[in-house]
């Protein structure tokens, strides 16, 4: 056993740091640090900077233009970019669709779509969930019926994150009602500009239209946009879902959040002393920090095993649960730390450069929106309840 990184890994970390110092625009990191809104252009700008360096697609093999990093290297990348307050990499094309196309797509699909993802020609979104289905993904009701060279798609997808920015959506659609629900599903790439598609924003608890409903009304999709075989889409979807997910634990986010929380607790005063000197509040910070120290090591254990070629099992589910609970606790403590400043809700202040400044210190303005928004962490990506059932079944063999 050895908790230290290798010399090579340390060198990689150092290279990353100087890259971030040089190339990460301060305008962007300031927005991230304050929890202000990032525009589509902000994400695209950061993607382009990373792509220029060859670091945009850390998990893609080099032959497809990726960085070809192993799990440890990707972990270091996550750690450093979150610590530097870089925008996150939008995952839909890069982390989700890319690996599916590389594994199951045709040569033509790979040649056409993969470079476009890297170059930012397309903004992808995910068409998996449907209304009323929740974690029961296999109950896909959106249909695709073959008509000559096209599929005709009808139905509705929901929880489509950042769908308002997307020009492309990858969808699970039902192409057959025979057999088990899993058996008649296909994986289809759909142009959002096609006639018959409507996008309706869903406003979340924090007031932000982060997710969308996407309606399909007789949308005609060329058959060459079918990935792999018809009715085999469930296999590809599962590959995507169980495909070694980097950063499921969110250690980088948690570390950045904890540092921010401590900074705030040093600045806020309670009873004439810095809040961080209040023994009970300090103990709450300490509890979550101790929990995070352990979880980060669990994460490294999984990452290290993955880098050595082992497929993670129920450990992913454990990291999902613990990681989200820790991040949510940090969010809750941050809301608590800012005291009455958590109450004002000045939406405009979240827009960088707006005339309407925040009420109170700038560190306070995103505390409540982040707390509310991150309640989603334990719901999406397979709710924590679903994860616990997986853990119980896998390890207890129940």
């Amino acid at each position, binding site marked *: 056993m050895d908790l230290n990184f290798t010399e090579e890994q340390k060198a990689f970390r150092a290279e990353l740091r100087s890259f971030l110092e040089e190339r990460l625009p301060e305008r962007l990191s300031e927005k991230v640090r304050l929890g202000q809104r990032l525009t589509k252009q902000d994400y695209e700008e950061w993607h382009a900077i990373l792509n220029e360096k060859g670091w945009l697609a850390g998990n893609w093999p080099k032959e497809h233009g990726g960085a070809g990093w192993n799990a440890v290297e990707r972990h270091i990348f996550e750690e450093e970019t979150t610590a530097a307050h870089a925008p996150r990499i939008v995952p839909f094309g890069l982390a989700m669709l890319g690996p599916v196309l590389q594994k199951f797509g045709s040569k033509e699909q790979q040649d056409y779509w993969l470079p476009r993802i890297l170059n930012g020609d397309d903004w992808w979104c995910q068409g998996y969930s449907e209304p009323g289905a929740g974690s029961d993904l296999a109950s896909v009701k959106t249909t695709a019926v073959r008509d000559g060279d096209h599929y005709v798609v009808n139905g509705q997808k929901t929880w489509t994150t950042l769908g308002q920015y997307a020009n492309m959506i990858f969808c699970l659609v039902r192409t057959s009602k025979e057999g088990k629900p899993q058996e008649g599903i296909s994986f289809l790439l759909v142009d959002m500009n096609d006639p018959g598609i409507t996008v309706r924003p869903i406003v979340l*608890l924090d007031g932000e239209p982060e997710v969308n409903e996407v309606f399909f009304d007789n949308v005609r999709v060329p058959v060459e946009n079918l990935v792999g075989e018809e009715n085999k889409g469930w296999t590809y979807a599962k590959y995507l879902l169980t495909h070694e997910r980097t950063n499921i634990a969110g250690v980088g986010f948690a570390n950045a959040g904890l540092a921010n929380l401590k900074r705030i607790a040093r600045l806020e005063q309670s009873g004439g002393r810095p809040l961080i000197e209040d023994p009970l509040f300090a103990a709450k910070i300490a509890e979550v920090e101790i929990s995070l120290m352990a979880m980060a090591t669990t994460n490294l254990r999984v990452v290290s095993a993955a880098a050595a070629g082992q497929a993670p099992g129920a450990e992913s589910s454990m990291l999902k649960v613990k990681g989200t609970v820790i991040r949510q606790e940090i969010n809750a403590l941050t809301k608590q730390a800012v005291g009455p400043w958590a109450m*004002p809700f000045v939406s405009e202040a979240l827009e960088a450069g707006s005339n309407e400044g925040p*009420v109170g210190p700038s560190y306070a303005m995103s505390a409540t929106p982040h707390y509310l928004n991150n309640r989603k962490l334990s719901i999406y990506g397979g709710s924590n309840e679903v994860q616990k059932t997986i853990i119980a079944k896998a390890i207890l063999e129940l």
Partner: protein
Amino acid sequence: MNFQLTEERQMLQDGLRRYLGEAVTPQALEAAQTTGMSPEIWAGLSEMGVAGALFTEDQGGFGGAGFDLMVVFEELGRAGAVEPMLELLLAGRLVAELGDETQQEIVAQAVEGAVQLAFAHGEPASRFDLERVETRAERSGDGWTLTGRKSVVVNGAQADHIVVSARTSGDVADRDGISLFLLPKGTAGIEIRDYPLSQGGHAAEIVLDGVTLPAGALLGAEGQAFEAIETAQARATAAICADALGAMETARALTGDYLKTRKQFGQPIGKFQALQHRAADMLIEIEQARSAVINLCGHLEADRDTREIHVSATKHLVGKVARLVAEEAVQMHGGIGMTEEYDLARFARRLSMLDQRFGDATFHLGRFVRLRAA
């Protein structure tokens, strides 16, 4: 010992529940977003004489006991009404207790719904420290000059009269030396920034830049306001906890309905034992919160230490339970619970903000320990 509501209170509860159940519509809430309240509902509440329940007969009301507050605010919370009744309670109490005859006239007007009130006490650096007042009032001629800044003054921009605390002597965190002043709307030298709150309603940042006031603006004895402020906040804490209790009841009702109707993997999700047990835990904790609110409401007239022990015990416990209920209700709903369109959202936010006013669960746990040790 008796835990039944009196007939009068039962009627008040029934009436309020019926009225608010109809009046708090999406339209009314939408309208309230820009102004912080719905004038129709405020008028409706006035017509029912709800504000009268918050004050004693001497003060121009017909109630004023802890359990009167409990009945009123539990219903406001249950319906998710955003009207500034809490501000009326807080500022009205101070004026009723400390004011001279002229000043007390304002309470009567407020009870009738003719004027609105606010209490400007919190400051950028005061957090939950009731005695921390940096705003200064200095004698100038016959009157006073106020300078300072007041933060997150709920209903501040809408109020016709604002009770403002300022230090007339002593150090920044002394209990002695705090005075109260009554400022009518539009007083020169006040700068107000109005903004919406996460839980609904509006608040304001108020800058007092050498505001000159006549001698008659002083409320009560100079430098002696702390006790009255603490007493008023004890009542307001009981009220906001009762409000949270009502909001929890709605959150649990929505969750119960959802568990019964929403199907997944072929059956209502309420059939899943893990969710059943978590729902049961929610119910158990809500009963705890109800008892805590009863304890505080039943001790508002007790000696100061006993009362304050219940203030901190109740605010701690209800704060913890409010977080649990808000988070569990959202979680058990899943995605739909995250959306603004679904009614749970405003209750979840309301419960999330309970901790931010009058001290959070951790603050009051520490305070309870200190009070017990004293």
